[in-house]
C-alpha cells in the first residue's frame, strides 16, 4: 500500500508556467507582422460578384483600390443615394466622367511605388454587383487615359458542382 501512497503523496505538482509569456509573445509577434491595418474606411456598399476563375493578387503593395457602389447610410445623407466612386479612401463627388480625379489618383499611387514596379501597378476594382456598367465603363476609360492598364475585377471564389465544369 505504501508503494502507491508515495506517488500522489505531496499533492499535485504545479505546472511550470514560466514559458507561457514566451509562447504568447511568439503569437503576438506573428500577428503583429501579419497584420495589415485597414487604413481605408469604405464609404460605399460593395458586394462583389462571385466567379470561378478568380486568382489571388500576389503583391499587395502594387494594388490600389477603386470602390464603386451605393453610399452607406450616413454618407448618403450628404451625397444622395446614386452610386459613387471611392478611390482608396476618398470619395469622388464631381459629376460626370471623373477623368481628372482618377488621373490624379493613379499618378499619386504610382509615385509611391519603387521605380522598378511602376509599370506593374494593379488597380483592383471592387464594384457592387448591382451597379450598372455605365459607371464602370467611365472608370475604365479614365484608367486607360491614365495609362493604368492592369486591372483586377474583384470577385469572390464561387464553387460550382463538378457537373458544370465540362
Amino acid at each position, binding site marked *: 500500500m505504501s508503494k502507491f501512497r508515495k506517488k500522489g503523496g505531496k499533492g499535485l505538482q504545479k505546472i511550470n508556467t514560466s514559458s507561457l509569456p514566451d509562447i504568447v509573445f511568439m503569437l503576438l509577434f506573428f500577428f503583429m507582422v501579419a497584420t495589415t491595418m485597414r487604413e481605408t474606411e469604405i464609404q460605399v456598399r460593395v458586394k462583389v460578384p462571385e466567379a470561378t476563375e478568380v486568382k489571388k493578387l500576389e503583391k499587395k503593395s502594387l494594388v490600389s483600390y477603386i470602390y464603386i457602389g451605393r453610399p452607406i447610410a450616413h454618407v448618403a445623407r450628404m451625397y444622395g443615394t446614386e452610386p459613387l466612386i471611392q478611390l482608396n479612401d476618398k470619395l469622388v463627388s464631381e459629376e460626370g466622367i471623373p477623368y481628372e480625379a482618377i488621373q490624379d489618383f493613379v499618378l499619386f499611387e504610382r509615385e509611391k511605388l519603387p521605380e522598378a514596379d511602376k509599370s506593374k501597378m494593379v488597380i483592383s476594382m471592387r464594384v457592387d454587383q448591382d451597379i450598372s456598367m455605365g459607371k464602370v*465603363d467611365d472608370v*475604365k476609360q479614365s484608367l*486607360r487615359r491614365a495609362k493604368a492598364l492592369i486591372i483586377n475585377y474583384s470577385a469572390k471564389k464561387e464553387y460550382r458542382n463538378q457537373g458544370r465544369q465540362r
Partner: protein
Amino acid sequence: MASRETPEVNGGSLADIAFLLLIFFLVTTTMDTDTGITRLLPPEPDPEQEDVEVRVNKRNVLVVLLNRSDLLMVGGEVMDRLALKDKTIEFFTNPLYKEDLPVMEETEIQFPPGSSSLLPEDGMWRGEVSKGVISLQNDRSTTYGKYLQVQNELVAAVNTLRNDFCNLYFDKDYSELNTNNPIEEEIQLGIRKRYKMNISESEPKSIGGRN
C-alpha cells in the same frame, strides 16, 4: 547587509499583458487577400491616329452582346450564360473545321527542349492555332455582376483549353506552373501562344439612353 539583494521582478503579469496585446492584434487583423479576375485594358488610341478600318474576316469574330436587360446574345443567338463556355471552346478549337468558325493557322511554338515526351527533341510544337477573336460588348445599363459572369465564362473557356493542353503535354495543371522556374515560365508563355486570350472589348457606347 546581505539581505539587500535586488528583489526579483514578479513576472506573473507578463503573460497577462502579452495576452492583452495579442487579443488586440487578433481583433484588428484583416488577413483578407483580394481575389479577382485580372485583365489588361487596351491602351488608349492615339488621338492623331486616323480610324483605319481593320478588315477582319467575319468568321474569325464571335460577338458577345449583353443588353440592358442582361440578356446574352452570342454570335446572333440568345444564349444562357452557362452554355457560353462550351460555345467559346468550340469557337477557339473549331474541331470539325466548320466554315463559319475561325480560320486555323499553321504555327510553330518553341517549348523547352526535352520538357515533354510528346514533343520532338528540339521542343518545337507544330500545329494549328485559332485566329479567333471574341468581341465583348455591353450596354451602359448592363449590371456589373452579369458582365463579370460573362467575363468569367470566357476566361474559364480559355483556362480550360490551356489546362487540357498542359495536362496532355506536361502532365501538370496550368495553374500549377511556377513562373519563378525559367523552364516552366517558358512553358507557360508557349501555352499562352497556343491558346490566346483574345477577348476584345469594344469602346463603350450608349445604346438607348444614359444609365
